[in-house]
């Protein structure tokens, strides 16, 4: 049974069609890159997968259950974790609190309040930070970290949250090439180690080919191609990024 099952998903904003009759399956452990020109619907698709955006029509089964049946946040948090470009940490909190935020779904009210003053499950946070190479920054204020380090803190939070599927929306778009490679290599390595499933939108086709086994290309809200990385040719890509005016 596929972990993610999308059937004829359509999403419309005002009069603009963001996704039109989109269907694909993702199996457990798959590493999928989403590519396509700006405005192709990559972010809308990821938001739909995360359960943030509700599609107008179509069905979305997550682990065999329709997404709208996940009523409780913490149930959904066990299935799906999200990492974005950069704005998703609380800069004024210490690193450890940002990492432990991944546990909030598990914790009761008193434990989470207490943790603000006396961090709980410290070993868990320390382990996660150790794996992303930031153990020495445990108590630093998050705003003092560089962009690449902040993105690694977000990775540590995902490790603590430990969801079945990780959705990444352009997670390296605001980093320089060296840091971007670093974060990508780390994220894909961790996903493999944890046996998780990864769906990531990317601007760089190069990175998509290097780190992913399957590439889904979107164009105008539709699946343009959905192929194993090895079968993708230059012609595919040229056509995908062709400007519309020239295509006509």
């Amino acid at each position, binding site marked *: 049974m596929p972990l993610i099952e999308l059937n004829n998903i359509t999403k419309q904003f005002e009069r603009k069609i963001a996704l039109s009759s989109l269907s694909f399956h993702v199996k457990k452990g798959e590493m999928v890159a989403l590519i396509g020109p700006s405005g192709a619907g990559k972010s809308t698709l990821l938001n739909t997968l995360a359960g943030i955006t509700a599609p107008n029509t179509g069905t979305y089964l997550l682990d065999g259950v329709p997404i709208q049946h996940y009523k409780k946040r913490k149930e959904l948090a066990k299935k799906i974790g999200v990492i974005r470009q950069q*704005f*998703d940490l609380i*800069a004024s909190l210490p690193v450890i609190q940002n990492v432990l935020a991944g546990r909030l*779904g598990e914790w009761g*009210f008193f434990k989470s*309040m207490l943790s*603000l003053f006396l961090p709980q499950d410290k070993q868990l946070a320390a382990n996660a930070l150790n794996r992303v190479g930031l153990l020495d920054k445990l108590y630093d204020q998050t*705003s003092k970290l560089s962009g690449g380090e902040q993105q690694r803190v977000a990775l540590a939070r995902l490790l603590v949250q430990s969801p079945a599927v990780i959705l990444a929306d352009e997670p390296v778009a605001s980093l320089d090439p060296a840091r971007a490679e670093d974060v990508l290599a780390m994220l894909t390595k961790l996903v493999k180690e944890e046996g998780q499933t990864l769906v990531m939108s990317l601007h760089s086709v190069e990175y998509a080919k290097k780190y992913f086994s399957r590439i889904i290309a979107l164009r105008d809200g539709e699946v343009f191609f959905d192929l194993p990385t090895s079968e993708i040719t230059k012609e595919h890509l040229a056509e995908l990024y062709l400007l519309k005016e020239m295509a006509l």
Partner: protein
Amino acid sequence: MKQLLSPLYLHKRLSLTLVLLAAFIWSLFSVTWSRDLLHAGGWATTVQILEGLIKPDLSPDILELAVESSWVTVVYAVTGMTVALIIAFVLGVLGSGVLVSSRPVRIVTAGFSRAVLAIIRAIHELVWALLFVAVIGLSPYAAIFALGIPYGGILGRIFADMLNDVPGEPIQALRAAGASRLHCLMYGYLPLIRSNMISYTMYRFECSIRSSAIMSFVGLGGLGYQIQLSLADLHYDEVWTFLFFLIAIVVLIDAWSNSLRKRLVL
């Protein structure tokens, strides 16, 4: 067309200026220019006030009184701000609606809280003071509530606005990690607005010192009361002593808030 008319507009404005100027000059004729018009002793009083500025009364009695009234003023301001913070925090969080997920419930609770905040800050602290003095007499509680209630209204409204202005992305990330709304408040909203909240509260605390001093004009003790008594006795040197104490308190709080802000800056 417009270009054709523009000299006309210019002309109009010039004539309006002339008419107003004429009206002003004409109004001067209706003033009775007698010696009674100005305070005859005004110059002498000015000299006395300036003398007081240069030679404030630094006798032990007055200094003791000034320290004592400064203490009263600061205590009123601190307790008043404590009341204000409680009101502001509760009504501010409710007024921002960040704890409620259902839209209709949010509109009702946020609207109600914001309305309460608006009503209590619409009434000036001096009016509150007069009301409380009428109800519970010249007791410190009158001063504390008179300060705390309108300041709670002001702070609460600002807190609510700050909470509403928090960027959505970090909060959404917390939600995605399984955080409840209360979690988001403690781990997201409050840490994000913390430094703004503290610096605005410190500024309001400074204002509350001034308000506390003024409020004692209604007889509630403190620096304002002493200033009023000394003014009535025409002891300007004493007035200046008390004013210097007031200035010193405000400067000290300003220095404190600066050092706090420096430590909290992101």
